Protein backbone atom coordinates (compact mmCIF):
# COMPACT_ATOMS: atom_id res chain seq x y z
CA UNK A 1 0.00 0.00 0.00
CA UNK A 2 2.79 2.41 -0.79
CA UNK A 3 2.40 5.73 -2.53
CA UNK A 4 5.16 7.68 -4.18
CA UNK A 5 5.68 11.41 -4.30
CA UNK A 6 8.05 12.64 -6.93
CA UNK A 7 10.68 15.26 -6.28
CA UNK A 8 9.82 18.64 -7.81
CA UNK A 9 12.23 21.50 -8.15
CA UNK A 10 11.16 24.41 -5.95
CA UNK A 11 11.52 28.09 -6.79
CA UNK A 12 13.84 28.52 -3.83
CA UNK A 13 16.48 26.56 -5.74
CA UNK A 14 16.67 29.19 -8.49
CA UNK A 15 17.36 32.12 -6.15
CA UNK A 16 20.78 33.59 -5.56
CA UNK A 17 20.13 34.26 -1.87
CA UNK A 18 18.50 31.75 0.48
CA UNK A 19 14.74 32.34 0.73
CA UNK A 20 13.36 33.01 4.20
CA UNK A 21 10.39 31.06 5.61
CA UNK A 22 8.71 31.50 9.00
CA UNK A 23 8.77 27.75 9.70
CA UNK A 24 10.53 24.82 8.08
CA UNK A 25 9.45 21.37 9.31
CA UNK A 26 11.90 18.54 8.67
CA UNK A 27 10.42 15.06 8.27
CA UNK A 28 7.06 14.13 6.71
CA UNK A 29 6.11 11.30 9.05
CA UNK A 30 2.86 11.55 11.01
CA UNK A 31 4.38 14.00 13.51
CA UNK A 32 5.93 16.37 10.96
CA UNK A 33 2.79 16.28 8.82
CA UNK A 34 0.59 17.07 11.83
CA UNK A 35 2.85 19.95 12.89
CA UNK A 36 2.87 21.38 9.37
CA UNK A 37 -0.89 21.06 8.90
CA UNK A 38 -1.63 22.55 12.31
CA UNK A 39 0.65 25.52 11.63
CA UNK A 40 -0.80 26.06 8.16
CA UNK A 41 -4.36 25.90 9.54
CA UNK A 42 -3.32 28.60 11.99
CA UNK A 43 -2.24 30.79 9.10
CA UNK A 44 1.52 30.20 9.28
CA UNK A 45 3.15 29.42 5.90
CA UNK A 46 5.12 26.18 6.19
CA UNK A 47 7.72 24.36 4.15
CA UNK A 48 7.94 20.64 4.94
CA UNK A 49 11.12 18.87 3.82
CA UNK A 50 11.41 15.09 3.52
CA UNK A 51 14.35 13.10 2.20
CA UNK A 52 12.11 10.31 0.91
CA UNK A 53 9.80 10.15 -2.05
CA UNK A 54 7.28 7.61 -0.83
CA UNK A 55 5.33 6.35 2.17
CA UNK A 56 4.28 2.84 3.01
CA UNK A 57 7.21 0.82 4.25
CA UNK A 58 5.51 -1.60 6.66
CA UNK A 59 2.54 -0.81 8.87
CA UNK A 60 4.70 0.50 11.76
CA UNK A 61 2.70 2.57 14.26
CA UNK A 62 -0.83 1.19 14.27
CA UNK A 63 -2.63 2.29 17.47
CA UNK A 64 -4.08 5.77 17.62
CA UNK A 65 -5.59 6.87 20.91
CA UNK A 66 -8.66 8.98 21.60
CA UNK A 67 -6.78 12.21 22.25
CA UNK A 68 -4.76 11.78 19.06
CA UNK A 69 -7.97 11.18 17.12
CA UNK A 70 -9.39 14.40 18.57
CA UNK A 71 -6.30 16.23 17.28
CA UNK A 72 -6.56 14.51 13.90
CA UNK A 73 -10.21 15.56 13.80
CA UNK A 74 -9.22 19.19 14.19
CA UNK A 75 -6.65 18.65 11.42
CA UNK A 76 -9.36 17.27 9.13
CA UNK A 77 -8.40 13.62 8.80
CA UNK A 78 -10.14 11.77 11.65
CA UNK A 79 -13.17 10.88 9.55
CA UNK A 80 -11.02 9.11 6.96
CA UNK A 81 -9.05 7.38 9.73
CA UNK A 82 -12.19 6.18 11.51
CA UNK A 83 -13.76 4.98 8.30
CA UNK A 84 -10.71 2.94 7.38
CA UNK A 85 -9.51 1.99 10.86
CA UNK A 86 -10.55 -0.77 13.22
CA UNK A 87 -12.21 0.72 16.29
CA UNK A 88 -11.54 -1.05 19.56
CA UNK A 89 -11.69 -0.45 23.27
CA UNK A 90 -11.46 -3.87 24.90
CA UNK A 91 -8.19 -5.48 25.88
CA UNK A 92 -7.70 -9.00 27.21
CA UNK A 93 -4.75 -10.40 29.10
CA UNK A 94 -4.04 -14.13 29.15
CA UNK A 95 -1.65 -16.07 31.34
CA UNK A 96 -0.74 -19.39 29.76
CA UNK A 97 -4.06 -20.61 28.31
CA UNK A 98 -6.31 -18.79 30.75
CA UNK A 99 -8.02 -15.39 30.52
CA UNK A 100 -6.68 -13.33 33.43
CA UNK A 101 -8.83 -10.28 32.89
CA UNK A 102 -10.33 -7.93 30.34
CA UNK A 103 -10.49 -4.15 30.37
CA UNK A 104 -12.65 -1.53 28.67
CA UNK A 105 -10.77 1.67 27.84
CA UNK A 106 -13.85 3.82 27.27
CA UNK A 107 -16.67 2.54 29.42
CA UNK A 108 -18.79 5.73 29.17
CA UNK A 109 -20.63 7.15 26.18
CA UNK A 110 -20.90 10.76 25.05
CA UNK A 111 -17.50 11.04 23.36
CA UNK A 112 -17.16 11.72 19.64
CA UNK A 113 -13.93 9.71 19.34
CA UNK A 114 -13.44 6.07 20.33
CA UNK A 115 -10.79 4.87 22.79
CA UNK A 116 -8.52 3.61 20.03
CA UNK A 117 -8.35 2.76 16.38
CA UNK A 118 -5.86 0.51 14.68
CA UNK A 119 -4.68 1.78 11.33
CA UNK A 120 -1.52 1.15 9.37
CA UNK A 121 0.76 4.17 9.59
CA UNK A 122 0.83 4.47 5.79
CA UNK A 123 -2.91 5.14 5.72
CA UNK A 124 -2.58 7.90 8.30
CA UNK A 125 0.34 9.39 6.36
CA UNK A 126 -1.59 9.23 3.13
CA UNK A 127 -4.62 10.99 4.64
CA UNK A 128 -2.35 13.65 6.12
CA UNK A 129 -0.55 14.20 2.80
CA UNK A 130 -3.93 14.59 1.09
CA UNK A 131 -5.01 17.10 3.72
CA UNK A 132 -1.70 18.97 3.39
CA UNK A 133 -2.38 19.26 -0.33
CA UNK A 134 -5.55 21.24 0.39
CA UNK A 135 -3.66 23.94 2.29
CA UNK A 136 -2.27 26.62 -0.02
CA UNK A 137 0.27 27.83 2.57
CA UNK A 138 1.84 24.38 3.08
CA UNK A 139 4.46 23.18 0.64
CA UNK A 140 5.85 19.64 0.90
CA UNK A 141 9.20 19.11 -0.80
CA UNK A 142 9.91 15.41 -1.32
CA UNK A 143 13.41 14.26 -2.10
CA UNK A 144 14.84 17.16 -0.06
CA UNK A 145 17.46 15.94 2.38
CA UNK A 146 18.80 18.26 5.06
CA UNK A 147 22.61 18.13 5.05
CA UNK A 148 23.57 21.15 7.10
CA UNK A 149 22.21 23.31 9.89
CA UNK A 150 23.58 26.66 10.93
CA UNK A 151 21.85 27.96 14.08
CA UNK A 152 21.40 31.71 14.43
CA UNK A 153 19.93 33.91 17.12
CA UNK A 154 16.81 34.65 15.11
CA UNK A 155 16.48 31.39 13.21
CA UNK A 156 18.55 28.86 11.33
CA UNK A 157 19.94 28.23 7.87
CA UNK A 158 19.44 24.76 6.43
CA UNK A 159 21.47 23.28 3.61
CA UNK A 160 19.35 20.93 1.55
CA UNK A 161 20.40 18.28 -0.97
CA UNK A 162 18.10 17.35 -3.84
CA UNK A 163 18.40 15.10 -6.92
CA UNK A 164 19.46 18.18 -8.88
CA UNK A 165 21.82 19.82 -6.45
CA UNK A 166 21.88 21.63 -3.17
CA UNK A 167 20.40 24.90 -1.95
CA UNK A 168 20.05 26.80 1.30
CA UNK A 169 16.91 27.98 3.01
CA UNK A 170 16.42 30.23 6.05
CA UNK A 171 13.76 29.75 8.71
CA UNK A 172 12.76 31.69 11.80
CA UNK A 173 11.92 28.36 13.41
CA UNK A 174 12.87 24.80 12.49
CA UNK A 175 10.71 21.91 13.66
CA UNK A 176 12.80 18.73 13.77
CA UNK A 177 10.41 15.84 13.14
CA UNK A 178 12.99 13.65 11.45
CA UNK A 179 12.50 10.55 13.55
CA UNK A 180 14.49 8.27 15.82
CA UNK A 181 17.60 8.62 13.64
CA UNK A 182 17.22 12.40 13.43
CA UNK A 183 19.72 14.12 11.15
CA UNK A 184 19.16 17.46 12.89
CA UNK A 185 19.96 15.92 16.24
CA UNK A 186 23.23 14.64 14.79
CA UNK A 187 24.02 17.97 13.12
CA UNK A 188 23.64 19.72 16.47
CA UNK A 189 25.66 16.97 18.11
CA UNK A 190 23.06 16.35 20.80
CA UNK A 191 23.28 13.22 22.94
CA UNK A 192 20.23 10.94 22.94
CA UNK A 193 20.45 9.14 26.26
CA UNK A 194 18.51 6.39 27.97
CA UNK A 195 18.11 2.70 28.39
CA UNK A 196 18.62 0.02 25.74
CA UNK A 197 16.63 -3.17 26.22
CA UNK A 198 18.34 -6.39 25.24
CA UNK A 199 15.16 -8.31 24.54
CA UNK A 200 14.34 -8.90 20.88
CA UNK A 201 10.81 -8.92 19.50
CA UNK A 202 9.43 -10.18 16.23
CA UNK A 203 6.78 -8.02 14.64
CA UNK A 204 4.71 -9.53 11.85
CA UNK A 205 1.75 -8.39 9.80
CA UNK A 206 -0.28 -11.36 8.69
CA UNK A 207 -3.09 -11.35 6.17
CA UNK A 208 -5.88 -13.77 6.98
CA UNK A 209 -9.60 -13.98 7.45
CA UNK A 210 -9.57 -14.39 11.22
CA UNK A 211 -12.31 -14.99 13.71
CA UNK A 212 -10.62 -13.05 16.51
CA UNK A 213 -12.61 -10.02 17.67
CA UNK A 214 -11.30 -6.44 17.27
CA UNK A 215 -9.63 -6.42 20.69
CA UNK A 216 -6.08 -6.19 22.00
CA UNK A 217 -5.01 -9.64 23.15
CA UNK A 218 -1.86 -10.08 25.17
CA UNK A 219 -0.48 -13.39 26.40
CA UNK A 220 2.10 -14.04 29.08
CA UNK A 221 3.73 -17.41 28.53
CA UNK A 222 1.24 -18.61 25.92
CA UNK A 223 1.23 -22.36 25.24
CA UNK A 224 1.92 -21.62 21.57
CA UNK A 225 5.08 -19.59 22.17
CA UNK A 226 7.18 -21.32 24.83
CA UNK A 227 7.55 -19.01 27.77
CA UNK A 228 7.57 -15.69 25.94
CA UNK A 229 4.86 -13.08 25.48
CA UNK A 230 2.65 -12.45 22.47
CA UNK A 231 0.37 -9.64 21.31
CA UNK A 232 -2.38 -9.68 18.70
CA UNK A 233 -4.07 -6.63 17.15
CA UNK A 234 -6.50 -6.35 14.29
CA UNK A 235 -5.76 -3.91 11.46
CA UNK A 236 -7.86 -2.98 8.42
CA UNK A 237 -7.79 -5.10 5.22
CA UNK A 238 -7.81 -8.41 7.17
CA UNK A 239 -4.30 -7.73 8.41
CA UNK A 240 -3.32 -8.82 11.91
CA UNK A 241 -0.41 -7.39 13.87
CA UNK A 242 1.48 -9.98 15.86
CA UNK A 243 4.27 -9.20 18.28
CA UNK A 244 6.28 -12.11 19.65
CA UNK A 245 8.94 -11.81 22.32
CA UNK A 246 12.03 -13.72 21.21
CA UNK A 247 14.42 -13.30 24.12
CA UNK A 248 17.73 -11.50 24.37
CA UNK A 249 19.79 -14.05 22.46
CA UNK A 250 17.64 -14.31 19.35
CA UNK A 251 19.39 -13.87 16.00
CA UNK A 252 17.66 -10.93 14.30
CA UNK A 253 18.38 -12.13 10.76
CA UNK A 254 17.53 -15.81 11.20
CA UNK A 255 14.31 -14.98 13.05
CA UNK A 256 12.96 -13.03 10.07
CA UNK A 257 13.25 -15.95 7.68
CA UNK A 258 9.79 -17.17 6.61
CA UNK A 259 10.73 -20.79 7.45
CA UNK A 260 11.27 -19.63 11.04
CA UNK A 261 8.35 -17.16 11.24
CA UNK A 262 5.59 -19.19 9.62
CA UNK A 263 5.69 -22.20 12.00
CA UNK A 264 5.55 -19.84 14.99
CA UNK A 265 2.52 -18.06 13.58
CA UNK A 266 0.85 -21.33 12.59
CA UNK A 267 1.09 -22.43 16.19
CA UNK A 268 -0.30 -19.15 17.48
CA UNK A 269 -3.14 -18.76 15.01
CA UNK A 270 -4.03 -22.43 14.79
CA UNK A 271 -4.38 -22.24 11.03
CA UNK A 272 -2.41 -22.37 7.78
CA UNK A 273 -4.27 -20.01 5.48
CA UNK A 274 -2.44 -16.76 6.09
CA UNK A 275 0.22 -14.82 4.27
CA UNK A 276 3.03 -12.67 5.62
CA UNK A 277 2.79 -8.99 4.71
CA UNK A 278 5.71 -7.61 6.70
CA UNK A 279 8.20 -8.96 9.20
CA UNK A 280 10.78 -7.19 11.29
CA UNK A 281 12.85 -8.03 14.35
CA UNK A 282 13.51 -5.18 16.71
CA UNK A 283 15.05 -4.23 19.98
CA UNK A 284 14.05 -0.99 21.52
CA UNK A 285 15.33 1.86 23.54
CA UNK A 286 13.75 4.34 25.90
CA UNK A 287 15.72 7.54 25.54
CA UNK A 288 15.33 11.27 25.10
CA UNK A 289 17.10 14.50 24.40
CA UNK A 290 17.92 16.39 27.55
CA UNK A 291 16.26 19.47 26.03
CA UNK A 292 13.79 19.62 23.15
CA UNK A 293 14.23 23.34 22.38
CA UNK A 294 17.64 24.39 21.07
CA UNK A 295 17.41 28.06 20.22
CA UNK A 296 15.17 28.18 17.18
CA UNK A 297 15.31 24.45 16.51
CA UNK A 298 12.57 22.46 18.26
CA UNK A 299 12.53 18.66 18.39
CA UNK A 300 9.25 16.73 18.28
CA UNK A 301 8.23 13.06 18.23
CA UNK A 302 10.82 10.28 17.91
CA UNK A 303 13.54 12.83 17.15
CA UNK A 304 13.07 14.10 20.73
CA UNK A 305 12.19 10.92 22.59
CA UNK A 306 11.84 7.22 21.95
CA UNK A 307 9.76 4.69 23.86
CA UNK A 308 9.02 0.97 23.67
CA UNK A 309 5.97 0.03 21.62
CA UNK A 310 4.06 -1.26 24.67
CA UNK A 311 1.36 1.30 25.37
CA UNK A 312 1.25 2.92 21.93
CA UNK A 313 3.04 5.96 23.24
CA UNK A 314 5.33 6.72 20.28
CA UNK A 315 3.15 8.13 17.52
CA UNK A 316 0.49 9.30 19.98
CA UNK A 317 2.88 11.36 22.06
CA UNK A 318 4.59 12.69 18.93
CA UNK A 319 1.33 13.99 17.52
CA UNK A 320 0.60 15.56 20.91
CA UNK A 321 4.03 17.25 20.75
CA UNK A 322 3.14 18.64 17.32
CA UNK A 323 -0.14 20.06 18.56
CA UNK A 324 1.49 21.57 21.65
CA UNK A 325 4.10 23.35 19.56
CA UNK A 326 1.95 24.50 16.64
CA UNK A 327 -0.27 27.01 18.43
CA UNK A 328 2.64 28.41 20.40
CA UNK A 329 4.74 28.98 17.28
CA UNK A 330 1.73 30.58 15.58
CA UNK A 331 1.22 33.02 18.48
CA UNK A 332 4.93 33.88 18.66
CA UNK A 333 5.18 34.43 14.89
CA UNK A 334 2.06 36.63 14.98
CA UNK A 335 3.56 38.71 17.75
CA UNK A 336 0.77 37.72 20.16
CA UNK A 337 3.16 36.02 22.58
CA UNK A 338 6.82 36.35 23.56
CA UNK A 339 9.46 33.88 22.29
CA UNK A 340 9.58 32.49 25.81
CA UNK A 341 6.21 30.81 25.21
CA UNK A 342 8.21 28.13 23.35
CA UNK A 343 9.94 27.34 26.64
CA UNK A 344 6.57 26.05 27.87
CA UNK A 345 6.69 23.47 25.05
CA UNK A 346 9.89 22.32 26.68
CA UNK A 347 8.30 22.20 30.14
CA UNK A 348 5.05 20.53 29.12
CA UNK A 349 6.29 18.02 26.58
CA UNK A 350 9.43 17.17 28.48
CA UNK A 351 7.26 16.12 31.44
CA UNK A 352 5.01 14.20 29.03
CA UNK A 353 8.05 12.42 27.58
CA UNK A 354 9.24 11.43 31.06
CA UNK A 355 5.77 10.13 31.85
CA UNK A 356 5.69 8.10 28.64
CA UNK A 357 9.21 6.77 29.08
CA UNK A 358 8.37 5.86 32.70
CA UNK A 359 5.27 3.90 31.70
CA UNK A 360 7.00 2.27 28.80
CA UNK A 361 10.03 1.25 30.89
CA UNK A 362 7.86 -0.24 33.62
CA UNK A 363 5.85 -2.22 31.07
CA UNK A 364 9.06 -3.52 29.59
CA UNK A 365 10.37 -4.52 33.02
CA UNK A 366 7.23 -6.59 33.47
CA UNK A 367 7.14 -8.12 29.99
CA UNK A 368 10.87 -8.85 29.76
CA UNK A 369 12.27 -9.49 33.27
CA UNK A 370 16.06 -9.27 33.35
CA UNK A 371 17.04 -11.56 36.23
CA UNK A 372 15.78 -14.72 37.89
CA UNK A 373 14.30 -12.68 40.74
CA UNK A 374 12.64 -10.18 38.38
CA UNK A 375 11.06 -13.13 36.62
CA UNK A 376 9.98 -14.54 40.00
CA UNK A 377 8.26 -11.25 40.88
CA UNK A 378 6.55 -11.16 37.51
CA UNK A 379 5.33 -14.75 37.79
CA UNK A 380 4.21 -14.13 41.36
CA UNK A 381 2.07 -11.21 40.22
CA UNK A 382 0.56 -13.25 37.39
CA UNK A 383 -0.28 -16.20 39.62
CA UNK A 384 -1.63 -14.02 42.45
CA UNK A 385 -3.76 -12.09 39.95
CA UNK A 386 -6.22 -14.98 39.90
CA UNK A 387 -6.79 -14.75 43.66
CA UNK A 388 -6.15 -11.14 44.61
CA UNK A 389 -7.44 -8.00 42.87
CA UNK A 390 -4.36 -5.97 43.89
CA UNK A 391 -2.13 -8.24 41.83
CA UNK A 392 -4.35 -7.88 38.78
CA UNK A 393 -3.64 -4.16 38.89
CA UNK A 394 0.09 -4.88 38.85
CA UNK A 395 -0.12 -6.97 35.69
CA UNK A 396 1.43 -4.72 33.07
CA UNK A 397 1.10 -5.62 29.41
CA UNK A 398 1.47 -1.96 28.39
CA UNK A 399 -0.32 1.03 29.93
CA UNK A 400 -2.11 2.50 26.96
CA UNK A 401 -1.48 6.06 25.91
CA UNK A 402 -3.37 8.78 27.72
CA UNK A 403 -2.88 12.52 27.27
CA UNK A 404 -0.73 14.30 29.82
CA UNK A 405 -2.11 16.71 32.35
CA UNK A 406 0.26 19.67 32.24
CA UNK A 407 1.65 21.15 35.44
CA UNK A 408 2.22 24.31 33.54
CA UNK A 409 3.06 27.98 34.09
CA UNK A 410 0.35 28.62 31.47
CA UNK A 411 -2.32 27.38 33.89
CA UNK A 412 -3.93 29.59 36.52
CA UNK A 413 -4.26 27.63 39.76
CA UNK A 414 -7.80 26.72 40.82
CA UNK A 415 -9.23 28.85 43.60
CA UNK A 416 -12.53 26.99 43.71
CA UNK A 417 -13.16 23.31 44.33
CA UNK A 418 -14.08 21.25 41.30
CA UNK A 419 -15.41 17.75 40.76
CA UNK A 420 -16.17 16.08 37.43
CA UNK A 421 -13.58 14.72 35.02
CA UNK A 422 -12.20 18.02 33.65
CA UNK A 423 -8.70 18.66 35.02
CA UNK A 424 -6.71 21.85 35.00
CA UNK A 425 -3.93 21.41 32.40
CA UNK A 426 -5.59 18.40 30.76
CA UNK A 427 -7.48 18.27 27.45
CA UNK A 428 -11.18 19.03 27.90
CA UNK A 429 -13.39 15.98 28.16
CA UNK A 430 -15.69 15.94 25.13
CA UNK A 431 -19.46 16.20 25.56
CA UNK A 432 -22.43 15.83 23.22
CA UNK A 433 -24.34 19.11 22.79
CA UNK A 434 -27.14 20.52 20.65
CA UNK A 435 -26.67 23.70 18.63
CA UNK A 436 -29.10 26.58 17.99
CA UNK A 437 -30.66 24.76 15.02
CA UNK A 438 -31.35 21.69 17.11
CA UNK A 439 -28.56 19.68 15.49
CA UNK A 440 -26.30 17.40 17.47
CA UNK A 441 -22.73 18.57 17.85
CA UNK A 442 -19.72 18.00 20.09
CA UNK A 443 -18.01 20.30 22.54
CA UNK A 444 -14.58 19.76 20.99
CA UNK A 445 -15.94 20.52 17.49
CA UNK A 446 -17.33 23.79 18.80
CA UNK A 447 -14.01 24.70 20.44
CA UNK A 448 -11.87 23.75 17.43
CA UNK A 449 -8.39 25.23 17.61
CA UNK A 450 -9.36 28.58 19.11
CA UNK A 451 -8.75 30.14 22.47
CA UNK A 452 -12.20 29.97 23.97
CA UNK A 453 -13.99 31.27 27.01
CA UNK A 454 -16.54 28.61 27.79
CA UNK A 455 -19.33 29.87 30.06
CA UNK A 456 -22.44 28.45 31.58
CA UNK A 457 -25.57 30.57 31.26
CA UNK A 458 -26.05 33.18 33.98
CA UNK A 459 -29.00 35.40 33.03
CA UNK A 460 -27.05 37.39 30.47
CA UNK A 461 -24.19 38.48 32.73
CA UNK A 462 -21.68 35.97 31.36
CA UNK A 463 -18.13 37.36 31.22
CA UNK A 464 -16.31 38.30 28.04
CA UNK A 465 -12.68 38.54 27.06
CA UNK A 466 -11.70 40.85 24.21
CA UNK A 467 -10.57 38.99 21.11
CA UNK A 468 -11.63 35.62 22.49
CA UNK A 469 -14.33 33.35 21.15
CA UNK A 470 -17.05 32.83 23.75
CA UNK A 471 -19.37 29.85 23.91
CA UNK A 472 -22.26 29.92 26.36
CA UNK A 473 -23.55 26.52 27.36
CA UNK A 474 -27.26 26.85 27.82
CA UNK A 475 -27.60 29.48 25.07
CA UNK A 476 -25.23 28.88 22.13
CA UNK A 477 -25.11 25.17 22.81
CA UNK A 478 -27.51 23.12 24.90
CA UNK A 479 -26.36 20.43 27.29
CA UNK A 480 -29.48 18.33 26.82
CA UNK A 481 -28.43 15.19 28.66
CA UNK A 482 -26.18 16.79 31.30
CA UNK A 483 -22.84 15.35 30.13
CA UNK A 484 -21.20 18.77 30.13
CA UNK A 485 -22.56 19.67 33.57
CA UNK A 486 -21.29 16.42 35.05
CA UNK A 487 -17.90 16.37 33.36
CA UNK A 488 -17.16 20.04 34.12
CA UNK A 489 -18.94 20.13 37.50
CA UNK A 490 -20.63 23.20 36.04
CA UNK A 491 -22.51 25.71 38.18
CA UNK A 492 -24.49 28.66 36.75
CA UNK A 493 -22.11 31.44 35.75
CA UNK A 494 -18.97 29.27 35.81
CA UNK A 495 -16.33 30.04 33.19
CA UNK A 496 -13.55 27.92 31.67
CA UNK A 497 -10.59 29.30 29.74
CA UNK A 498 -9.52 26.90 26.98
CA UNK A 499 -6.13 26.89 25.24
CA UNK A 500 -5.81 26.53 21.45
CA UNK A 501 -4.86 22.87 22.02
CA UNK A 502 -8.12 22.30 23.93
CA UNK A 503 -6.37 21.98 27.28
CA UNK A 504 -7.97 23.72 30.26
CA UNK A 505 -5.99 26.83 31.30
CA UNK A 506 -8.22 28.27 34.06
CA UNK A 507 -11.71 28.05 35.56
CA UNK A 508 -13.84 30.03 37.95
CA UNK A 509 -17.20 29.61 39.65
CA UNK A 510 -17.60 33.39 39.74
CA UNK A 511 -15.23 34.93 37.21
CA UNK A 512 -14.07 38.53 37.57
CA UNK A 513 -12.61 40.73 34.85
CA UNK A 514 -9.19 41.11 36.46
CA UNK A 515 -8.65 37.39 36.96
CA UNK A 516 -9.86 36.63 33.42
CA UNK A 517 -7.41 39.14 31.96
CA UNK A 518 -4.51 37.84 34.01
CA UNK A 519 -5.31 34.23 33.07
CA UNK A 520 -5.54 35.18 29.39
CA UNK A 521 -2.10 36.81 29.53
CA UNK A 522 -0.67 33.89 31.48
CA UNK A 523 -1.96 31.48 28.81
CA UNK A 524 0.19 33.43 26.30
CA UNK A 525 3.27 33.11 28.46
CA UNK A 526 3.07 36.66 29.86
CA UNK A 527 3.29 36.59 33.64
CA UNK A 528 4.29 40.11 34.56
Amino acid at each position, binding site marked *: MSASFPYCRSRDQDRQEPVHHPVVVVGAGPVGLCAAIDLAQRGVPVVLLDDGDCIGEGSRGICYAKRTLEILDRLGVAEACLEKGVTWKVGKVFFRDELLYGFDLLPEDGHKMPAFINLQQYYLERFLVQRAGELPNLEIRWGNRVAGLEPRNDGARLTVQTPDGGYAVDASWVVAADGARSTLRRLLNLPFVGEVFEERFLIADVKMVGDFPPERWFWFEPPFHGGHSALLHKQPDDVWRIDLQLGADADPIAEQAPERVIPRLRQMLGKDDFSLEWVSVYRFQCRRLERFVHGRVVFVGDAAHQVSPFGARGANSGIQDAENLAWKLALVLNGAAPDSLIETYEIERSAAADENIGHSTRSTDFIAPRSAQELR*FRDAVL*SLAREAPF*AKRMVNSGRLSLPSTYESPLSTADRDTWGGTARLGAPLPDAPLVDGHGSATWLLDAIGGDEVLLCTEADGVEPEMPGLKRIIIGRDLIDRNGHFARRFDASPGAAYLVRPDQHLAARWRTPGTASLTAAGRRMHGIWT
Partner: protein
Amino acid sequence: MAELETEGRLPDPDAAYRSLIEAHRGLSDEDSAALNTRLVLILANHIGDAQVLAAAIALVKKALSQHAVRQT
Protein backbone atom coordinates in the same frame (compact mmCIF):
# COMPACT_ATOMS: atom_id res chain seq x y z
CA MET B 1 1.60 9.06 55.24
CA ALA B 2 3.16 6.74 57.76
CA GLU B 3 6.80 6.26 58.72
CA LEU B 4 8.39 2.84 58.61
CA GLU B 5 7.83 1.30 62.04
CA THR B 6 10.95 -0.47 63.32
CA GLU B 7 9.97 -0.80 66.97
CA GLY B 8 8.47 -4.18 67.82
CA ARG B 9 4.77 -4.35 66.87
CA LEU B 10 4.00 -8.04 67.13
CA PRO B 11 2.60 -9.14 70.50
CA ASP B 12 4.30 -12.51 70.12
CA PRO B 13 7.37 -12.06 67.89
CA ASP B 14 8.56 -15.64 68.44
CA ALA B 15 5.28 -17.01 67.12
CA ALA B 16 5.42 -14.73 64.04
CA TYR B 17 8.97 -15.79 63.33
CA ARG B 18 7.95 -19.40 63.78
CA SER B 19 5.13 -19.08 61.24
CA LEU B 20 7.64 -17.85 58.63
CA ILE B 21 9.95 -20.78 59.39
CA GLU B 22 7.11 -23.26 59.16
CA ALA B 23 5.99 -21.86 55.83
CA HIS B 24 9.43 -22.52 54.39
CA ARG B 25 10.29 -25.81 56.10
CA GLY B 26 10.96 -28.56 53.58
CA LEU B 27 10.92 -26.25 50.58
CA SER B 28 13.65 -26.09 47.97
CA ASP B 29 15.44 -22.76 47.61
CA GLU B 30 13.49 -22.09 44.44
CA ASP B 31 10.13 -22.81 46.12
CA SER B 32 11.17 -20.68 49.10
CA ALA B 33 12.03 -17.82 46.77
CA ALA B 34 8.65 -18.17 45.07
CA LEU B 35 6.91 -18.09 48.45
CA ASN B 36 8.87 -15.07 49.66
CA THR B 37 8.22 -13.18 46.45
CA ARG B 38 4.48 -13.64 46.77
CA LEU B 39 4.63 -12.78 50.44
CA VAL B 40 6.46 -9.53 49.71
CA LEU B 41 3.84 -8.52 47.15
CA ILE B 42 0.93 -9.33 49.47
CA LEU B 43 2.47 -7.50 52.42
CA ALA B 44 3.49 -4.52 50.28
CA ASN B 45 -0.09 -4.19 49.16
CA HIS B 46 -1.32 -4.55 52.72
CA ILE B 47 1.00 -1.72 53.82
CA GLY B 48 -0.40 0.28 50.93
CA ASP B 49 2.15 3.08 51.18
CA ALA B 50 4.92 3.40 48.60
CA GLN B 51 7.01 5.56 50.95
CA VAL B 52 6.96 2.98 53.73
CA LEU B 53 7.93 0.35 51.18
CA ALA B 54 10.79 2.54 49.93
CA ALA B 55 11.94 3.12 53.53
CA ALA B 56 11.89 -0.64 54.15
CA ILE B 57 13.95 -1.26 51.00
CA ALA B 58 16.42 1.42 52.07
CA LEU B 59 16.75 -0.16 55.53
CA VAL B 60 17.50 -3.55 53.95
CA LYS B 61 20.10 -2.08 51.58
CA LYS B 62 21.76 -0.25 54.45
CA ALA B 63 21.82 -3.36 56.63
CA LEU B 64 23.21 -5.45 53.76
CA SER B 65 25.97 -2.99 52.96
CA GLN B 66 27.01 -2.77 56.65
CA HIS B 67 27.04 -6.54 56.73
CA ALA B 68 29.26 -6.58 53.63
CA VAL B 69 31.65 -4.08 55.27
CA ARG B 70 31.96 -6.28 58.36
CA GLN B 71 32.72 -9.31 56.17
CA THR B 72 35.70 -7.66 54.50
